[in-house]
């Protein structure tokens, strides 16, 4: 009796310790994640000349500017052409997404529902291209794009992203779940393949479309290496290149740096927050889960 009571108490103490430990871990985690983001935002909202002043020593003012201003944002848009970079990134992202979703969905459909000669060769090419990461072929791709004659144009940024092995694979996985009988019935009714694809297959596959759209948007929006190599005039400068161009040690540039970092990160963050669940579900449905 006495023994059981003591065991119960030990268990109770253990549980409280466990809870305290979990709580401490969560608080530490939150600090590590939030502080850099919050500090960036606070610094972007501070008057440009007073950035160093509050960085050291650490006070509450480091994180809460006594004077909040949008001047830094106004400055990067009016004087540094950040609007142009934002527009370029949107053009490049939407161009690639519009073409890429159609191309990948079509190929995924053929792989999921058709038997044709050379199917295994085509599937091998798809697998190969999504196993070889994009960064690894940036330098030879530059030679190819130069040969085609589209270097330093929007096309150089859009076209290489259109054929997307992972996108094709994702669509294939999703289309395999669609009932073949449904398509056969439509076929018997005399529907063309094009209308079956656009009227039945795509409307039934919106979750897959969302996943591929988000995947391609994040990839295009966040890429730095390829735009750096494929374009050199400021006309085609995309956001990531614009942000990277503000990296210098001078205080005057810190304000531009923080505000452009915030402006560049808002679109992907908002998109991420909006479709987070579907995106993760879609990616893990590729069978890697």
């Amino acid at each position, binding site marked *: 009796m006495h023994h059981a009571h003591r065991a119960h108490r030990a268990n109770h103490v253990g549980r409280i310790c466990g809870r305290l430990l*979990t709580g401490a871990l*969560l608080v530490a985690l939150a600090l590590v*994640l939030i502080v*850099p983001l919050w500090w*960036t935002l606070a*610094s972007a909202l501070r008057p440009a000349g007073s*950035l*160093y002043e509050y*960085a*050291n*020593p*650490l006070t509450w003012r480091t994180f809460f500017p006594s004077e909040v201003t949008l001047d830094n944002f106004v400055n990067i848009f009016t004087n540094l052409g950040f609007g142009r970079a934002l527009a370029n990134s949107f053009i490049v992202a939407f161009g690639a997404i519009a073409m890429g979703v*159609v*191309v*990948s969905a*079509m*190929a995924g459909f*053929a*792989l999921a529902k*058709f*038997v*044709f000669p050379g199917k295994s060769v085509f599937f091998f*090419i798809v697998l*190969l291209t999504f196993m*070889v*990461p994009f*960064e*690894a072929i940036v*330098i*030879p791709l530059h*030679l*190819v794009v130069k040969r085609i004659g589209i270097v330093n144009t929007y096309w150089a940024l859009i*076209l290489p992203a*259109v*054929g997307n092995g992972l996108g*094709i694979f994702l669509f294939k996985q999703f289309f395999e779940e669609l009932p073949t009988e449904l*398509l056969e019935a439509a076929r018997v009714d005399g529907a063309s*393949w094009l209308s079956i*694809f656009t009227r039945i297959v795509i409307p039934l596959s919106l979750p897959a479309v969302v996943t591929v759209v988000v995947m391609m948007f994040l990839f295009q*929006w*966040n890429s*730095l*290496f390829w735009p*750096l190599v494929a374009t050199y005039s400021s006309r085609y400068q995309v956001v*990531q290149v614009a942000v*990277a161009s*503000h*990296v210098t040690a001078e205080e005057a540039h810190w304000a531009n*740096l*923080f505000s452009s*970092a915030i402006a*560049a*990160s808002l679109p*992907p963050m908002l*998109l*991420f927050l909006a479709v987070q669940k579907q995106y*993760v579900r879609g990616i*893990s449905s590729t069978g*890697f*889960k």
Partner: protein
Amino acid sequence: MFRDSKAAFWFILPALVFLCLFKIWPIAVSLGESFMQTSISGRKFFVGLENYAYLLHDDPLFWGSVRVTLLYSLVINPLAVAVSLALALLLNRSKWYVGFFRTLCFLPSAISLSVVAVIWGVMLDPHFGLANSVLRMLGLQPQPFLTSSSQALWCLMAMSLWRSAGYWMMFFLAGLQGIPQEVYEAAEIDGAGGLTRMFRITLPLLARTMSFVLVSNTAFNFLTFAPVFILTRGGPMRSTNMLMYESYKSAFVNVDLGRATAISSMLLVMILITSVIELRLTRASFEY
């Protein structure tokens, strides 16, 4: 399955054209160029395996980069898996705060690696950075961080971990939710404690997720470019001169395409070998 080859052909045609033009052709060019050398007059001639032989035998710069890249990958890959798995285990419960924490962990991965590098670069500034202000407040010595050859690479690792751990956590969470609850209940009835359940049920059943995360991470980390380009340019004293950056310099600064493409081909081989080893390891150690 339909046997309409003509329809299938039209459906795959656009993808085939784009994949061949912008993926297969560059891969072929990369291999081809790595067997070529360009003379001062711009003429190209075939040199066989000479670019590779030179890299392997007479290029200390290349070997320095291999060392840096391997060190970076050997530390960051297992660490990223461990941290993201730990986060997933910590957040795999139904409490009111869990949704908030999951989103918070996920948020940094929506920011591009280059913006993360920019933010961390300022935070780690030796004179005015937030990191040293915190150290001073705690009464510790300020550190040189990115300006020191013994610390820079570790700073890049921390940065990469900060950005990507929450992303990979999502895959582990999906994996954890795929484990049926009955398995745990049965184990509890059989008297299995928390640790036993962890090592006998959770980890073995997560083996597939684990290989996926490990292999994806490997490719990604071997090809690290943005943080090096933005923050350190390979320095100080080549301590962060990773292979991708060395290849970039070779192609665009020294205009030695043979060397640049030979390096990127070797990188692909390294990624391939490491991935195969990792697949073997994760499969073997979780057999039960």
